[in-house]
Protein backbone atom coordinates (compact mmCIF):
# COMPACT_ATOMS: atom_id res chain seq x y z
CA UNK A 1 0.00 0.00 0.00
CA UNK A 2 1.16 3.50 -0.77
CA UNK A 3 2.92 5.47 1.95
CA UNK A 4 1.84 9.06 2.70
CA UNK A 5 3.77 11.73 4.54
CA UNK A 6 1.39 14.19 6.15
CA UNK A 7 3.01 17.52 7.00
CA UNK A 8 0.71 19.64 9.17
CA UNK A 9 1.48 21.80 12.20
CA UNK A 10 -2.02 21.68 13.67
CA UNK A 11 -2.38 18.64 15.91
CA UNK A 12 -6.14 18.21 15.42
CA UNK A 13 -5.86 18.32 11.61
CA UNK A 14 -2.93 15.88 11.72
CA UNK A 15 -5.07 13.52 13.80
CA UNK A 16 -8.10 13.85 11.50
CA UNK A 17 -6.25 13.38 8.20
CA UNK A 18 -4.12 10.48 9.40
CA UNK A 19 -7.17 8.65 10.83
CA UNK A 20 -8.98 9.03 7.53
CA UNK A 21 -5.98 7.99 5.40
CA UNK A 22 -5.43 4.93 7.61
CA UNK A 23 -9.10 4.03 7.10
CA UNK A 24 -8.54 4.32 3.35
CA UNK A 25 -5.75 1.75 3.70
CA UNK A 26 -2.72 4.03 3.35
CA UNK A 27 0.39 3.79 5.45
CA UNK A 28 0.81 7.19 7.16
CA UNK A 29 3.83 8.99 8.57
CA UNK A 30 3.61 12.55 9.90
CA UNK A 31 5.69 15.67 10.48
CA UNK A 32 4.68 18.82 12.34
CA UNK A 33 7.03 21.40 10.83
CA UNK A 34 9.09 22.00 7.71
CA UNK A 35 12.40 20.85 9.20
CA UNK A 36 10.93 17.56 10.40
CA UNK A 37 9.25 17.10 7.01
CA UNK A 38 12.62 17.12 5.22
CA UNK A 39 14.15 14.57 7.61
CA UNK A 40 11.15 12.23 7.48
CA UNK A 41 10.86 12.53 3.67
CA UNK A 42 14.46 11.41 3.11
CA UNK A 43 14.26 8.64 5.71
CA UNK A 44 10.81 7.21 4.88
CA UNK A 45 10.72 7.81 1.08
CA UNK A 46 6.93 8.26 0.92
CA UNK A 47 4.98 7.88 -2.35
CA UNK A 48 3.16 11.12 -1.73
CA UNK A 49 3.63 14.12 0.55
CA UNK A 50 0.65 16.21 1.67
CA UNK A 51 2.26 19.53 2.51
CA UNK A 52 0.98 22.48 4.52
CA UNK A 53 2.52 25.90 3.72
CA UNK A 54 2.30 28.13 6.77
CA UNK A 55 4.38 26.22 9.32
CA UNK A 56 7.07 26.96 11.90
CA UNK A 57 10.78 26.87 10.98
CA UNK A 58 10.67 26.27 7.21
CA UNK A 59 7.63 27.20 5.12
CA UNK A 60 5.95 24.61 2.90
CA UNK A 61 7.08 26.48 -0.25
CA UNK A 62 10.71 26.24 0.84
CA UNK A 63 10.26 22.58 1.78
CA UNK A 64 8.83 21.94 -1.69
CA UNK A 65 11.75 23.72 -3.33
CA UNK A 66 14.30 21.66 -1.34
CA UNK A 67 12.45 18.36 -1.96
CA UNK A 68 12.42 18.97 -5.70
CA UNK A 69 16.17 19.56 -5.77
CA UNK A 70 17.08 16.62 -3.47
CA UNK A 71 17.84 13.41 -5.45
CA UNK A 72 15.99 11.11 -2.98
CA UNK A 73 12.74 13.09 -3.12
CA UNK A 74 12.73 14.87 -6.48
CA UNK A 75 10.26 12.44 -8.08
CA UNK A 76 7.95 12.11 -5.08
CA UNK A 77 4.34 13.20 -5.65
CA UNK A 78 3.63 16.36 -3.69
CA UNK A 79 0.21 17.85 -2.93
CA UNK A 80 0.07 21.25 -1.27
CA UNK A 81 -2.82 21.82 1.12
CA UNK A 82 -2.99 25.28 2.63
CA UNK A 83 -5.21 28.13 3.77
CA UNK A 84 -3.53 30.39 1.20
CA UNK A 85 -5.97 30.90 -1.66
CA UNK A 86 -4.61 33.86 -3.64
CA UNK A 87 -3.93 33.13 -7.36
CA UNK A 88 -0.29 34.22 -6.79
CA UNK A 89 0.14 31.51 -4.12
CA UNK A 90 -1.34 28.81 -6.36
CA UNK A 91 0.96 29.97 -9.16
CA UNK A 92 3.98 29.79 -6.84
CA UNK A 93 3.10 26.25 -5.70
CA UNK A 94 2.71 25.02 -9.26
CA UNK A 95 5.91 26.76 -10.35
CA UNK A 96 7.90 25.07 -7.57
CA UNK A 97 6.68 21.71 -8.81
CA UNK A 98 3.61 20.71 -6.78
CA UNK A 99 1.47 18.03 -8.47
CA UNK A 100 -1.69 19.50 -6.99
CA UNK A 101 -2.66 22.59 -4.99
CA UNK A 102 -5.59 22.36 -2.56
CA UNK A 103 -7.10 25.22 -0.53
CA UNK A 104 -8.25 24.02 2.89
CA UNK A 105 -11.48 26.03 2.96
CA UNK A 106 -12.48 24.76 -0.49
CA UNK A 107 -12.13 20.98 -0.02
CA UNK A 108 -13.74 18.33 2.17
CA UNK A 109 -11.93 15.37 3.66
CA UNK A 110 -13.41 13.16 0.93
CA UNK A 111 -12.16 15.59 -1.77
CA UNK A 112 -8.63 15.32 -0.32
CA UNK A 113 -8.77 11.50 -0.42
CA UNK A 114 -10.00 11.57 -4.03
CA UNK A 115 -7.24 13.99 -5.09
CA UNK A 116 -4.58 11.85 -3.43
CA UNK A 117 -5.91 8.75 -5.19
CA UNK A 118 -5.90 10.45 -8.56
CA UNK A 119 -2.40 11.95 -8.15
CA UNK A 120 -1.03 8.53 -7.13
CA UNK A 121 -2.57 6.94 -10.24
CA UNK A 122 -0.84 9.40 -12.59
Amino acid at each position, binding site marked *: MAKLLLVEDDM*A*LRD*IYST*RFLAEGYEVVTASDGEQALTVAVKEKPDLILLDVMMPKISGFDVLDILRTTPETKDCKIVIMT*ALSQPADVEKGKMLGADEYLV*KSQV*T*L*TDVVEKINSVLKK
Partner: protein
Amino acid sequence: MSLYFVVGTVLVSVSIILILFLKSRKERVELKSLRDLKSSLAANESKESALLLSIADGVYMVDTERNLTMFNPAAEEMTGWTKEEAVGLKCWTVLNLKNEQDDSICQNDCPAKKVWTSGENIVRDDTCFIRHRGAKSVQVSSSYAPIRNSNGDYSGAICVFRDITEKKEVERQRNEFVSTASHELRTPITALEGYISLAENGKICQIDEKAHEYLDKAHQTALGMSDLVKNLLTITKIEDAKIQISVGDFSIHDLAGETVEVLQPFAKEKNLYLKLNEVENQEIKGEKAIGRSLNVRADREKIREVLYNLIENGLKFTTTGGVSISINYDKDFSTVTVSDTGMGISSDGQQHIFEKFYRVDNTATREAGGTGLGLFITRSLVEMSGGRIWLESQVGKGTKFYFTLPRSID
Protein backbone atom coordinates in the same frame (compact mmCIF):
# COMPACT_ATOMS: atom_id res chain seq x y z
CA MET B 1 -46.52 148.12 12.71
CA SER B 2 -44.13 147.55 15.55
CA LEU B 3 -46.65 145.20 17.19
CA TYR B 4 -46.81 143.18 13.98
CA PHE B 5 -43.02 143.20 13.86
CA VAL B 6 -42.69 141.97 17.47
CA VAL B 7 -45.33 139.22 17.02
CA GLY B 8 -43.69 138.17 13.71
CA THR B 9 -40.24 138.01 15.26
CA VAL B 10 -41.54 135.96 18.19
CA LEU B 11 -43.37 133.54 15.85
CA VAL B 12 -40.30 133.11 13.64
CA SER B 13 -38.06 132.56 16.67
CA VAL B 14 -40.45 130.04 18.18
CA SER B 15 -40.63 128.19 14.84
CA ILE B 16 -36.84 128.18 14.57
CA ILE B 17 -36.47 126.93 18.10
CA LEU B 18 -39.14 124.31 17.47
CA ILE B 19 -37.46 123.19 14.25
CA LEU B 20 -34.06 123.10 15.92
CA PHE B 21 -35.47 121.18 18.84
CA LEU B 22 -37.20 118.63 16.61
CA LYS B 23 -34.12 118.28 14.40
CA SER B 24 -31.80 117.66 17.30
CA ARG B 25 -34.27 115.18 18.73
CA LYS B 26 -34.42 113.35 15.39
CA GLU B 27 -30.66 113.35 15.21
CA ARG B 28 -30.47 111.99 18.70
CA VAL B 29 -32.89 109.19 17.77
CA GLU B 30 -30.96 108.49 14.57
CA LEU B 31 -27.70 108.48 16.43
CA LYS B 32 -29.11 106.10 18.98
CA SER B 33 -30.40 103.65 16.37
CA LEU B 34 -27.04 103.84 14.59
CA ARG B 35 -25.31 103.09 17.85
CA ASP B 36 -27.72 100.17 18.46
CA LEU B 37 -27.06 98.80 14.99
CA LYS B 38 -23.34 99.12 15.46
CA SER B 39 -23.39 97.32 18.77
CA SER B 40 -25.67 94.60 17.42
CA LEU B 41 -23.35 94.19 14.42
CA ALA B 42 -20.39 93.99 16.76
CA ALA B 43 -22.26 91.47 18.86
CA ASN B 44 -22.99 89.40 15.75
CA GLU B 45 -19.42 89.66 14.62
CA SER B 46 -18.11 88.57 17.99
CA LYS B 47 -20.65 85.73 18.03
CA GLU B 48 -19.41 84.63 14.63
CA SER B 49 -15.77 84.86 15.58
CA ALA B 50 -16.44 83.13 18.90
CA LEU B 51 -18.15 80.35 16.95
CA LEU B 52 -15.27 80.02 14.51
CA LEU B 53 -12.76 80.27 17.33
CA SER B 54 -14.34 77.57 19.46
CA ILE B 55 -15.33 75.10 16.76
CA ALA B 56 -13.05 72.05 16.60
CA ASP B 57 -13.53 71.70 12.83
CA GLY B 58 -11.40 73.60 10.37
CA VAL B 59 -13.41 76.31 8.57
CA TYR B 60 -12.34 78.47 5.64
CA MET B 61 -14.01 80.62 3.01
CA VAL B 62 -12.96 81.33 -0.55
CA ASP B 63 -14.17 83.84 -3.14
CA THR B 64 -14.97 82.77 -6.68
CA GLU B 65 -11.33 83.39 -7.65
CA ARG B 66 -10.54 80.77 -5.01
CA ASN B 67 -8.68 83.22 -2.80
CA LEU B 68 -8.97 82.44 0.89
CA THR B 69 -11.04 85.06 2.70
CA MET B 70 -11.39 83.44 6.11
CA PHE B 71 -9.39 80.84 8.04
CA ASN B 72 -10.27 79.73 11.57
CA PRO B 73 -7.88 78.58 14.35
CA ALA B 74 -8.73 74.86 13.90
CA ALA B 75 -7.81 75.22 10.22
CA GLU B 76 -4.56 76.85 11.32
CA GLU B 77 -3.76 73.91 13.55
CA MET B 78 -4.63 71.26 10.98
CA THR B 79 -2.69 72.87 8.15
CA GLY B 80 0.19 74.58 9.95
CA TRP B 81 -0.64 77.92 8.21
CA THR B 82 -1.61 81.02 10.19
CA LYS B 83 -4.67 83.07 9.29
CA GLU B 84 -2.44 86.05 8.42
CA GLU B 85 -0.41 83.95 5.99
CA ALA B 86 -3.31 82.05 4.48
CA VAL B 87 -5.91 84.76 3.83
CA GLY B 88 -5.36 86.21 0.37
CA LEU B 89 -3.57 83.12 -0.96
CA LYS B 90 -5.12 80.68 -3.42
CA CYS B 91 -6.81 77.84 -1.52
CA TRP B 92 -4.85 75.11 -3.34
CA THR B 93 -1.56 76.59 -2.15
CA VAL B 94 -2.60 76.23 1.47
CA LEU B 95 -4.77 73.11 1.46
CA ASN B 96 -3.37 70.96 -1.34
CA LEU B 97 -6.20 68.37 -1.26
CA LYS B 98 -5.30 64.86 -2.42
CA ASN B 99 -7.39 61.73 -2.88
CA GLU B 100 -6.46 58.22 -1.72
CA GLN B 101 -4.43 57.67 -4.89
CA ASP B 102 -2.43 60.83 -4.08
CA ASP B 103 -3.87 62.68 -7.10
CA SER B 104 -4.55 66.38 -6.63
CA ILE B 105 -8.23 67.11 -5.99
CA CYS B 106 -7.62 70.88 -6.17
CA GLN B 107 -6.47 70.68 -9.78
CA ASN B 108 -8.84 68.09 -11.21
CA ASP B 109 -11.93 68.21 -9.10
CA CYS B 110 -12.05 71.40 -6.97
CA PRO B 111 -15.04 70.90 -4.65
CA ALA B 112 -15.33 74.63 -3.84
CA LYS B 113 -15.67 75.46 -7.53
CA LYS B 114 -18.23 72.68 -7.85
CA VAL B 115 -20.57 74.24 -5.28
CA TRP B 116 -20.94 77.51 -7.12
CA THR B 117 -21.23 75.87 -10.50
CA SER B 118 -23.79 73.33 -9.32
CA GLY B 119 -25.28 75.36 -6.45
CA GLU B 120 -25.43 72.21 -4.35
CA ASN B 121 -23.72 71.34 -1.10
CA ILE B 122 -20.97 68.76 -1.35
CA VAL B 123 -19.98 66.34 1.34
CA ARG B 124 -16.75 64.61 0.48
CA ASP B 125 -16.63 61.81 2.96
CA ASP B 126 -13.41 60.39 4.31
CA THR B 127 -11.56 60.15 1.03
CA CYS B 128 -9.69 63.42 1.14
CA PHE B 129 -6.24 64.23 2.49
CA ILE B 130 -4.72 67.62 3.27
CA ARG B 131 -1.02 68.19 3.50
CA HIS B 132 0.09 69.74 6.79
CA ARG B 133 2.90 72.24 6.38
CA GLY B 134 5.10 69.93 8.44
CA ALA B 135 4.66 67.51 5.53
CA LYS B 136 2.46 65.01 7.38
CA SER B 137 -0.75 64.06 5.63
CA VAL B 138 -4.05 64.45 7.48
CA GLN B 139 -7.12 62.50 6.43
CA VAL B 140 -10.19 64.72 6.56
CA SER B 141 -13.91 64.50 6.04
CA SER B 142 -15.08 67.75 4.48
CA SER B 143 -18.24 69.50 3.38
CA TYR B 144 -18.78 72.56 1.19
CA ALA B 145 -21.62 75.04 0.75
CA PRO B 146 -22.01 77.97 -1.64
CA ILE B 147 -22.17 81.61 -0.40
CA ARG B 148 -24.38 84.17 -2.17
CA ASN B 149 -24.16 87.97 -2.00
CA SER B 150 -27.16 90.32 -1.47
CA ASN B 151 -27.99 90.12 -5.20
CA GLY B 152 -28.27 86.36 -4.95
CA ASP B 153 -25.12 85.73 -7.03
CA TYR B 154 -22.52 83.23 -5.91
CA SER B 155 -19.66 84.98 -4.18
CA GLY B 156 -17.68 81.96 -3.00
CA ALA B 157 -17.87 78.90 -0.81
CA ILE B 158 -17.45 77.86 2.79
CA CYS B 159 -15.74 74.65 3.74
CA VAL B 160 -15.81 72.75 7.02
CA PHE B 161 -13.31 69.95 7.47
CA ARG B 162 -12.57 67.49 10.24
CA ASP B 163 -9.47 65.45 11.05
CA ILE B 164 -10.54 61.79 10.94
CA THR B 165 -7.08 60.21 11.20
CA GLU B 166 -7.91 58.79 14.63
CA LYS B 167 -11.32 57.50 13.56
CA LYS B 168 -9.72 55.75 10.58
CA GLU B 169 -7.08 54.23 12.82
CA VAL B 170 -9.78 52.84 15.12
CA GLU B 171 -11.57 51.40 12.08
CA ARG B 172 -8.34 49.87 10.84
CA GLN B 173 -7.66 48.27 14.22
CA ARG B 174 -11.21 46.94 14.40
CA ASN B 175 -10.92 45.41 10.94
CA GLU B 176 -7.55 43.93 11.81
CA PHE B 177 -9.05 42.39 14.93
CA VAL B 178 -12.00 40.87 13.03
CA SER B 179 -9.63 39.62 10.36
CA THR B 180 -7.23 37.99 12.87
CA ALA B 181 -10.09 36.49 14.87
CA SER B 182 -11.63 35.07 11.68
CA HIS B 183 -8.31 33.56 10.61
CA GLU B 184 -7.89 32.02 14.06
CA LEU B 185 -11.41 30.59 13.89
CA ARG B 186 -10.78 28.89 10.57
CA THR B 187 -8.53 26.10 11.89
CA PRO B 188 -10.79 24.94 14.75
CA ILE B 189 -13.80 25.01 12.40
CA THR B 190 -11.92 22.85 9.91
CA ALA B 191 -11.04 20.47 12.77
CA LEU B 192 -14.68 20.42 13.88
CA GLU B 193 -15.81 19.52 10.35
CA GLY B 194 -13.04 16.91 10.12
CA TYR B 195 -13.95 15.13 13.36
CA ILE B 196 -17.65 15.10 12.42
CA SER B 197 -16.76 13.62 9.06
CA LEU B 198 -14.61 10.93 10.76
CA ALA B 199 -17.45 10.06 13.15
CA GLU B 200 -19.82 9.65 10.18
CA ASN B 201 -17.40 7.52 8.20
CA GLY B 202 -18.54 3.86 8.26
CA LYS B 203 -14.96 2.62 7.81
CA ILE B 204 -13.94 4.35 11.04
CA CYS B 205 -16.98 4.43 13.35
CA GLN B 206 -20.18 2.51 13.90
CA ILE B 207 -22.93 4.83 15.11
CA ASP B 208 -26.72 4.58 15.22
CA GLU B 209 -29.18 6.52 13.07
CA LYS B 210 -30.02 9.09 15.72
CA ALA B 211 -26.32 9.91 16.20
CA HIS B 212 -26.02 10.29 12.40
CA GLU B 213 -28.92 12.71 12.38
CA TYR B 214 -27.36 14.87 15.11
CA LEU B 215 -23.95 14.80 13.47
CA ASP B 216 -25.54 15.91 10.19
CA LYS B 217 -27.00 18.90 12.01
CA ALA B 218 -23.65 19.62 13.68
CA HIS B 219 -22.04 19.45 10.24
CA GLN B 220 -24.53 21.97 8.78
CA THR B 221 -23.83 24.30 11.72
CA ALA B 222 -20.09 24.01 11.19
CA LEU B 223 -20.57 24.82 7.49
CA GLY B 224 -22.62 27.88 8.46
CA MET B 225 -19.83 29.04 10.80
CA SER B 226 -17.30 28.52 8.09
CA ASP B 227 -19.39 30.69 5.69
CA LEU B 228 -19.69 33.39 8.33
CA VAL B 229 -15.92 33.46 8.86
CA LYS B 230 -15.30 33.60 5.10
CA ASN B 231 -17.77 36.49 4.71
CA LEU B 232 -16.29 38.42 7.64
CA LEU B 233 -12.85 38.15 6.08
CA THR B 234 -14.20 39.39 2.74
CA ILE B 235 -15.87 42.35 4.46
CA THR B 236 -12.74 43.41 6.30
CA LYS B 237 -10.90 43.31 2.98
CA ILE B 238 -13.63 45.39 1.30
CA GLU B 239 -13.60 47.97 4.11
CA ASP B 240 -9.83 48.22 4.17
CA ALA B 241 -9.89 48.55 0.37
CA LYS B 242 -7.50 45.60 0.35
CA ILE B 243 -9.54 43.46 -1.97
CA GLN B 244 -7.61 42.77 -5.14
CA ILE B 245 -9.55 43.26 -8.35
CA SER B 246 -8.08 41.70 -11.45
CA VAL B 247 -10.03 43.01 -14.39
CA GLY B 248 -10.29 41.09 -17.63
CA ASP B 249 -12.64 40.56 -20.59
CA PHE B 250 -14.96 37.56 -20.45
CA SER B 251 -18.35 36.31 -21.56
CA ILE B 252 -20.89 36.94 -18.81
CA HIS B 253 -23.18 34.45 -20.55
CA ASP B 254 -20.64 31.63 -20.21
CA LEU B 255 -19.93 32.52 -16.58
CA ALA B 256 -23.67 32.52 -15.78
CA GLY B 257 -23.89 29.11 -17.52
CA GLU B 258 -21.11 27.70 -15.33
CA THR B 259 -22.74 29.02 -12.15
CA VAL B 260 -26.12 27.59 -13.15
CA GLU B 261 -24.49 24.20 -13.63
CA VAL B 262 -22.88 24.31 -10.17
CA LEU B 263 -26.20 25.18 -8.50
CA GLN B 264 -28.37 22.81 -10.59
CA PRO B 265 -28.18 19.98 -7.96
CA PHE B 266 -29.46 22.37 -5.27
CA ALA B 267 -32.39 23.36 -7.54
CA LYS B 268 -33.19 19.68 -8.29
CA GLU B 269 -33.12 18.86 -4.60
CA LYS B 270 -35.81 21.49 -4.03
CA ASN B 271 -37.74 20.52 -7.19
CA LEU B 272 -37.23 23.95 -8.76
CA TYR B 273 -36.25 24.96 -12.27
CA LEU B 274 -33.01 26.87 -12.81
CA LYS B 275 -32.41 28.15 -16.31
CA LEU B 276 -30.30 30.60 -18.25
CA ASN B 277 -32.28 32.25 -21.03
CA GLU B 278 -30.61 32.45 -24.41
CA VAL B 279 -29.49 35.94 -25.36
CA GLU B 280 -31.39 37.36 -28.28
CA ASN B 281 -29.39 39.03 -30.99
CA GLN B 282 -29.70 42.73 -30.45
CA GLU B 283 -29.12 45.86 -32.41
CA ILE B 284 -26.44 47.98 -30.82
CA LYS B 285 -25.32 51.23 -32.39
CA GLY B 286 -27.28 50.27 -35.49
CA GLU B 287 -25.26 47.11 -35.92
CA LYS B 288 -26.46 43.57 -35.45
CA ALA B 289 -24.64 42.11 -32.50
CA ILE B 290 -24.70 38.55 -31.30
CA GLY B 291 -25.30 38.83 -27.59
CA ARG B 292 -23.34 35.76 -26.57
CA SER B 293 -20.16 37.04 -28.08
CA LEU B 294 -20.33 40.35 -26.25
CA ASN B 295 -17.84 40.45 -23.41
CA VAL B 296 -17.87 42.42 -20.18
CA ARG B 297 -14.89 43.97 -18.46
CA ALA B 298 -14.70 43.00 -14.77
CA ASP B 299 -13.11 40.61 -12.27
CA ARG B 300 -14.35 37.18 -13.39
CA GLU B 301 -14.02 35.44 -10.01
CA LYS B 302 -15.72 38.28 -8.13
CA ILE B 303 -18.62 38.25 -10.60
CA ARG B 304 -18.83 34.47 -10.24
CA GLU B 305 -19.40 35.09 -6.50
CA VAL B 306 -22.05 37.72 -7.31
CA LEU B 307 -23.93 35.33 -9.61
CA TYR B 308 -23.61 32.48 -7.11
CA ASN B 309 -24.94 34.61 -4.23
CA LEU B 310 -27.92 35.94 -6.19
CA ILE B 311 -28.92 32.58 -7.70
CA GLU B 312 -28.44 30.69 -4.44
CA ASN B 313 -30.53 33.30 -2.59
CA GLY B 314 -33.27 32.98 -5.22
CA LEU B 315 -33.36 29.21 -4.82
CA LYS B 316 -33.25 29.42 -1.01
CA PHE B 317 -36.37 31.58 -0.79
CA THR B 318 -38.42 29.88 -3.51
CA THR B 319 -40.60 26.86 -2.86
CA THR B 320 -42.47 26.51 -6.16
CA GLY B 321 -41.37 27.55 -9.64
CA GLY B 322 -37.72 28.44 -9.85
CA VAL B 323 -35.03 30.89 -10.89
CA SER B 324 -34.17 32.19 -14.35
CA ILE B 325 -31.29 34.33 -15.51
CA SER B 326 -31.33 36.61 -18.52
CA ILE B 327 -28.75 38.95 -19.97
CA ASN B 328 -29.27 42.12 -21.99
CA TYR B 329 -26.90 44.61 -23.52
CA ASP B 330 -26.99 48.27 -24.35
CA LYS B 331 -24.27 50.48 -25.78
CA ASP B 332 -22.06 50.58 -22.68
CA PHE B 333 -23.41 48.06 -20.22
CA SER B 334 -24.57 44.51 -19.89
CA THR B 335 -27.47 43.92 -17.50
CA VAL B 336 -27.95 40.58 -15.77
CA THR B 337 -31.37 39.78 -14.32
CA VAL B 338 -31.86 37.01 -11.77
CA SER B 339 -35.62 36.42 -11.29
CA ASP B 340 -37.22 34.05 -8.84
CA THR B 341 -40.82 33.05 -8.19
CA GLY B 342 -40.27 33.06 -4.44
CA MET B 343 -41.77 34.78 -1.44
CA GLY B 344 -40.73 38.33 -2.40
CA ILE B 345 -39.40 41.12 -0.20
CA SER B 346 -41.53 43.83 1.46
CA SER B 347 -40.83 47.45 0.50
CA ASP B 348 -39.33 48.06 3.94
CA GLY B 349 -37.05 45.06 3.48
CA GLN B 350 -36.03 46.27 0.02
CA GLN B 351 -34.68 49.52 1.50
CA HIS B 352 -32.31 47.70 3.83
CA ILE B 353 -31.53 44.49 1.96
CA PHE B 354 -28.01 45.54 0.90
CA GLU B 355 -26.98 46.63 4.41
CA LYS B 356 -24.45 44.73 6.47
CA PHE B 357 -26.02 42.11 8.82
CA TYR B 358 -29.53 43.03 7.65
CA ARG B 359 -31.88 40.07 7.40
CA VAL B 360 -35.55 40.09 6.52
CA ASP B 361 -36.99 38.59 9.67
CA ASN B 362 -39.54 35.88 9.05
CA THR B 363 -39.91 32.13 9.39
CA ALA B 364 -38.45 31.45 5.95
CA THR B 365 -35.24 33.42 6.51
CA ARG B 366 -34.77 31.87 9.94
CA GLU B 367 -35.11 28.41 8.45
CA ALA B 368 -32.92 29.12 5.44
CA GLY B 369 -30.06 30.33 7.63
CA GLY B 370 -27.40 32.72 6.37
CA THR B 371 -25.35 35.54 7.80
CA GLY B 372 -26.93 38.70 6.42
CA LEU B 373 -23.63 39.55 4.78
CA GLY B 374 -24.09 38.02 1.32
CA LEU B 375 -25.92 40.90 -0.36
CA PHE B 376 -23.67 43.52 1.23
CA ILE B 377 -20.68 41.71 -0.28
CA THR B 378 -22.53 41.23 -3.58
CA ARG B 379 -23.23 44.95 -3.87
CA SER B 380 -19.65 45.87 -3.00
CA LEU B 381 -18.27 43.47 -5.61
CA VAL B 382 -20.59 44.81 -8.34
CA GLU B 383 -19.74 48.42 -7.50
CA MET B 384 -16.02 47.65 -7.45
CA SER B 385 -16.42 46.36 -10.99
CA GLY B 386 -17.99 49.64 -12.11
CA GLY B 387 -21.56 48.37 -12.14
CA ARG B 388 -24.65 48.88 -10.02
CA ILE B 389 -27.24 46.61 -8.47
CA TRP B 390 -30.93 47.01 -7.61
CA LEU B 391 -34.06 44.96 -7.20
CA GLU B 392 -37.78 44.81 -7.90
CA SER B 393 -39.94 42.64 -5.71
CA GLN B 394 -43.51 41.89 -4.82
CA VAL B 395 -44.45 39.94 -1.72
CA GLY B 396 -45.82 36.54 -2.70
CA LYS B 397 -44.86 36.91 -6.37
CA GLY B 398 -41.10 36.92 -6.52
CA THR B 399 -37.99 39.06 -6.78
CA LYS B 400 -35.82 40.31 -9.63
CA PHE B 401 -32.27 41.34 -8.93
CA TYR B 402 -30.55 43.37 -11.64
CA PHE B 403 -26.87 44.23 -11.93
CA THR B 404 -24.88 45.93 -14.64
CA LEU B 405 -21.29 45.53 -15.77
CA PRO B 406 -19.35 47.67 -18.22
CA ARG B 407 -18.97 46.07 -21.66
CA SER B 408 -15.52 45.40 -23.07
CA ILE B 409 -14.19 48.06 -25.37
CA ASP B 410 -13.99 46.49 -28.82
